[in-house]
């Protein structure tokens, strides 16, 4: 009895410590954003929504936020067809050099972000497109694509190869088989992957920092630029809006496909 009791004490200590560590940054930012004072503090100095009012007025923050949304959208729109097709092909068909291709597609994971960022900066710089928004979207897509492929592969490899044969047997030519059978069956993976891509691109900082200029600055870079001068509570408020966006996407994911897809996939 005492053994199981002390075990549960140790377990609960760990659980509570982990929960505190994980939620502390969010709680601090959330608290600080409601302060009535003029400097960023936790616990907040009185309660007010004035800093939320301030960010609603601040056109530079608002525009940066819209730019971040555009970047995230471009990234997701490109990632959906590319990642879905690559994921299905790797999981289902006996592609030549499948293993090498898989490793190649995972490369962005292994290269430090600063390395990829400088590489992409040189590429886009040479092409003369630095400062536009779409290269940032493409860059986010490239560095995060493994997440998309992983999500699609996870649901495509659960797919029985008999399903396509059964569809063929029902009279479906190859394109119809793909559209009516394979695609709907991997849809949970596609949704998961695209929402992940959206969040990751929305939050992407390091690579964006290297690819944007004053006219195309995205929200994380804008926040970073601001804290280099004075740290005011409006940054906490915009961070909360940011966190809320991410939370909304996660909630959407849970509604659409269920979060258990993360728990199940290896």
């Amino acid at each position: 009895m005492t053994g199981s009791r002390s075990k549960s004490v140790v377990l609960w200590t760990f659980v509570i410590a982990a929960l505190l560590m994980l939620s502390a940054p969010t709680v601090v930012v959330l608290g600080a954003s409601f302060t009535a004072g003029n400097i960023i503090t936790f616990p907040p100095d009185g309660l007010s929504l004035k800093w939320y009012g301030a960010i609603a007025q601040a056109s530079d923050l608002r525009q940066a936020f819209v730019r971040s949304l555009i970047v995230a959208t471009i990234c997701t729109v490109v990632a959906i067809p590319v990642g879905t097709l690559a994921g299905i092909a790797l999981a289902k068909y006996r592609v030549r050099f499948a293993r090498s291709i898989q490793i190649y597609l995972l490369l962005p994971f292994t290269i430090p972000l600063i390395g990829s960022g400088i590489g992409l900066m040189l590429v886009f710089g040479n092409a003369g497109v630095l400062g536009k928004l779409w290269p940032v979207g493409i860059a986010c897509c490239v560095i995060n694509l493994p997440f998309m492929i992983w999500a699609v592969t996870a649901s495509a490899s659960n797919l029985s190869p008999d399903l396509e044969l059964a569809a063929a047997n029902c009279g479906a030519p190859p394109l119809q088989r793909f559209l009516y059978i394979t695609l709907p069956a991997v849809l949970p993976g596609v949704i998961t992957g695209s929402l992940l891509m959206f969040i990751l691109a929305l939050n992407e900082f390091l690579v964006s920092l290297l690819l944007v200029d004053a006219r195309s600055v995205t929200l994380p870079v804008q926040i970073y630029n601001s804290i280099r001068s004075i740290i005011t509570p409006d940054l906490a408020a915009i961070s909360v809006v940011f966190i809320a966006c991410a939370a909304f996407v996660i909630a959407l994911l849970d509604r659409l496909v269920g979060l258990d897809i993360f728990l199940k996939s290896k």
Partner: protein
Amino acid sequence: MGVVDAEQPAVEPHDRIAVSVKDVSMVFGNVHAVKSASFDLPKGRFLTILGPSGSGKTTLLRMIAGFDRPTGGEIFINGQPVSAVPPHGRAIGMVFQKLALFPHMTAAENVAFPLKMRRHDARRILEKVERYLDLVRLGGYGNRRINELSGGQQQRVAIARALVFEPDLLLLDEPLAALDRKLREEMQLEFRRIQKELGVTTINVTHDQREALVVSDEIIVMNGGSIQQKARPVDAYRAPSNAFVANFIGVTNFVEGRVVELAGSRATIEANGLHLAGLAADATLAGGKPCAGAVRAEQIRVAPKDGHLDGLETVVDGLVVDCIFEGERVVYEIRVPQLGDVLMRVFDHDPESHLQFGPGDAVRLGWNARDMHVFAK
């Protein structure tokens, strides 16, 4: 083999043949999965391809469905060669081993899929889906998702999906293998009922000899990629064409020996110094050559040591090694020293006394000469 030929139906006219397989072979790398298989299947018949795993039966079925292309020979469906026709261009319904129902669709959507792919109009699709769900006794279940249906109901959806577009041919790839025995036997009869009701030509693949005997009009027995025998169930059972078929269908005892005399359909073999009379069941038998005499477990009668087995041409002495009570019958395992200590299995259906013998009892065994089929070895 005269017995078998006399009972075979006359050769069918050409336009009555649904499927014709001519010298079809399949080679994967250096594995000869199917070796020059040929058969004709008349329209409306229920054919079962029976064989152990690795016998090539599933490969043959996949070639008929169009999933694999034969490396040799040609398959004709309704007289047309089909090797160049992709699977979606063949009017063949198939029930897969693991059913392969579309998990993101309801039962009705699964059944509607073949019609949708064939561009039937929406009203007609609704009507036919309902009719075929009724046929498989799933009326009212159309809106259920696949994972909300029981194993037996999923089977029925798969059957409806395979039949709804009125295919020329229905293929069954061991769909019953995973079911428990009671449900399997129920579904066997269900397949037979639906097949008779619609009159659709059907090819079923199985390793279950009982299923083959119960559902089929004709059986093809395959082993090692080759067709061993094609016959009606009763003929495959009563007049197996070789030792493999005799062993694979039913419970059969083999007495090994040498041919000493051949006279018409009668063969006399010598086993362990004993002369036994049997039926020559193999055209390749020749005097002096090694052979095996096959006797079904139910054709052997058993009596006490001093009892009489009147009218039986072969009688030997034995010692009961084991007796297995199976409910409706008792299976005796009996060692026969006179035949070189061979173990013989004997079914006993004595209506008066079950378990009349126990292990260690001395008994007599007997059978008729016509019940011992002699095959070359």
